[in-house]
């Protein structure tokens, strides 16, 4: 019997050979439907190093030329956030599908323009919300669907982001770094992940947003607190540069809670004790111990099968996106969702700014109080 012939691989090109480009090129090599044909960067040296390390044949420092000569089917945009909109428009105009890194665009107005262009060109878009496709998050979703915590009521995301880390140090060391020029500064480049993890389970189109940012020893805001209130579900996001590096989301239901730790790749379930009084105090640690043992067993097994990868989610998302192109099915992340996340981010930063302005007005009064004291 003849084996079914797989569809031809799609030609992928990437623009922006910076830090995250490595992950795209590394994960693309693991997806059968992808053939990487070219890389591009405004600096030829950057394009060359990416091409040399990942054995990519096409090397460009000009997007138009890359689009014309390499003729990609899909363009991955891994440049700074403020360039996402214009570069996506160019790739769409050249007839390409586009995978664009988070944050989608500079703001919701630009997002609407890009989405309209994609729809009229009948091309597919993908936003780099890769952690939604991380095996641990997928597992969490299926445990919620199986009713392990009842109805979801509240989601809490924490991002611990020491500025001394790999990405933060680059931003702190350079006052003119592009991240600092974004309307939402450091947060616009970082909170997509913890935010879309909340919004994945909080479906309201217009949840109420309250947000505040604050500074530590740096000359830009480094702490952020966000509250989201939907009709039935609430969310809270904490970004802190003063706690250790962590990516954790807790999903609270009316029957229990699931804690997803993306770095440890573990899920822990908490529920109220079933046994009364002092017995409950024994039951709870026992259950936590059993939960820990299950996580260990699961990760050990995954390790043996070589499944523990930092960017597993990106590979899964990429595979689904490419499949949706080949089979002309629905995108893994809808355009409406990209727009909703972008709009809520806009509201977060607008609220932070308005609060900061109000706080600044109070400054003289505070000084007076100090004098009186």
């Amino acid at each position, binding site marked *: 019997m003849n084996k079914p012939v797989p569809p031809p691989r799609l030609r992928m090109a990437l623009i922006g050979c910076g*830090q995250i480009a490595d992950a795209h090129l590394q994960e693309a090599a693991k997806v059968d439907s992808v053939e990487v044909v070219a890389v591009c960067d405004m*600096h030829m*040296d*950057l394009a060359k190093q*990416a091409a*040399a390390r990942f054995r990519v044949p096409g090397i460009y420092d000009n997007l138009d030329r890359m689009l014309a000569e390499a003729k990609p089917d899909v363009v991955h945009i891994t440049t700074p956030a403020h360039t996402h909109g214009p570069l996506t428009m160019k790739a769409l105009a050249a007839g390409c599908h586009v995978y664009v890194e988070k944050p989608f665009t500079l703001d919701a107005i630009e997002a609407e323009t890009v989405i309209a262009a994609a729809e009229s060109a009948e091309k597919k878009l993908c936003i780099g919300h890769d952690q939604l496709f991380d095996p641990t998050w997928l597992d969490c979703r299926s445990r919620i669907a199986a009713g392990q915590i009842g109805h979801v009521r509240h989601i809490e995301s924490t991002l611990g982001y020491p500025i001394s880390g790999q990405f933060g140090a*680059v931003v702190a060391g*350079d006052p003119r770094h592009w991240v600092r020029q974004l309307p939402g500064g450091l947060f616009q480049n970082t909170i997509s992940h913890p935010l879309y993890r909340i919004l994945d389970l909080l479906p309201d189109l217009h949840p109420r947003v309250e947000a505040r940012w604050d500074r530590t020893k740096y000359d830009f805001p480094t702490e952020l607190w966000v509250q989201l209130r939907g009709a039935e579900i609430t969310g809270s996001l904490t970004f802190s540069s003063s706690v250790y590096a962590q990516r954790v989301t807790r999903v609270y239901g009316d029957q229990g809670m699931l804690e997803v730790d993306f770095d440890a790749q573990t899920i822990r379930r908490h529920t109220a004790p079933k046994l009364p009084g002092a017995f409950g105090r024994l039951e709870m640690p026992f259950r936590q111990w059993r939960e820990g043992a299950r996580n260990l067993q699961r990760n050990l097994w995954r390790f043996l099968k*070589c499944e523990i990868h930092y960017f597993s989610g990106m590979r899964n998302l990429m595979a689904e996106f490419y499949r949706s192109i080949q089979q002309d099915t629905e995108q893994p992340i809808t355009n409406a969702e990209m727009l909703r996340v972008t709009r809520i981010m806009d509201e977060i930063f607008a609220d932070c700014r308005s609060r900061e302005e109000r706080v600044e007005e109070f400054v003289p009064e505070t000084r007076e109080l100090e004098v009186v004291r």
Partner: protein
Amino acid sequence: MNVFLTGGTGFLGRRVAKSLLERGAHVRCLVRPSSDVRSLQSFIGHDLWNGVELVTGDLTGVDACRRLIGHSDTVCHVAASLSGGTAVMFLNTVIPTRYLLAAASQAGVRRFVQISSLGVYEAANLLTGAQLDEQTPLDSHPELRDPYTYSKIVQEQVAWEYRAQTNLPLTIIRPGVIYGPGRGVLSNRVGLKLGPVLIKMGGSQTLPYTYVDNCAAAVSQACFAENVDGQAFNILDDGLPTGTQLLRKLRRAGQGVRALWVPRPMIGPLSSVYEWYSRWSQGQLPGVITRYRSDSMWKKLNYSNAKAKAQLGWRPHVTFDEAFDRSIAGGQA
């Protein structure tokens, strides 16, 4: 002499600044808005500080670099990025170097001194015990090296290209591992740190080290010396220890480290196994150790500093024992 100095706030750069000032040069020192200027000032000291002119800026374009160079007649380019992924190192080392070279050639400077690294050579293909000197070719597969070395090799290639195109008078300094107070004496050349344990690689290989003050003297000498256009110089001290000798000395100084020893014949095969596993597991363990990298790093070689002594007239005045004591006393940053 008016020297425009980049990286002057760093470990090596501040000593280069001091050495240049002591020899009577005027130093126009680049500082970034985020640089720690106060610690530079206290290091240079009150008496010499008059010879320093600070210019604040970034090497973010040819015009910006041109303004920063001002009327300097010499450029001493020490700045480079020492950590981060390949892209970050390229963005912070290679790209600024391109801008600075173009600006320096526009400014018509009499000399451009660039700090490269002893790691740029193709050591992987040398035979054990071979001589590594300035005749050894640059690595023709820089992409196989670690991100830092890759960026330094390309940075050097870029400088040579500029010289070929514009006749910019260029002198390259290739220091070995620079150590001194605040940096400690252990480095990857001895072995790899895995948490609190040092995986000691071999032990009989000579460590290509240079004490920071000795190295700074060589850099400042390269700014002054005659007839060194188009030359590269390895900078290494005399009387260098092997890895085993260094660890023994540390133990005697009460600073012993817990070490796990990989005997020399095992380094290559173990590196190959790790490299294979990393590839087979599609990067479950990162590909930081490869056969090529370990052949470049831990081979027993004979290093020579004869050219720097002969043509720069440089001498490593601080002996290894003295430098070791000063480094230990200065603690680790």
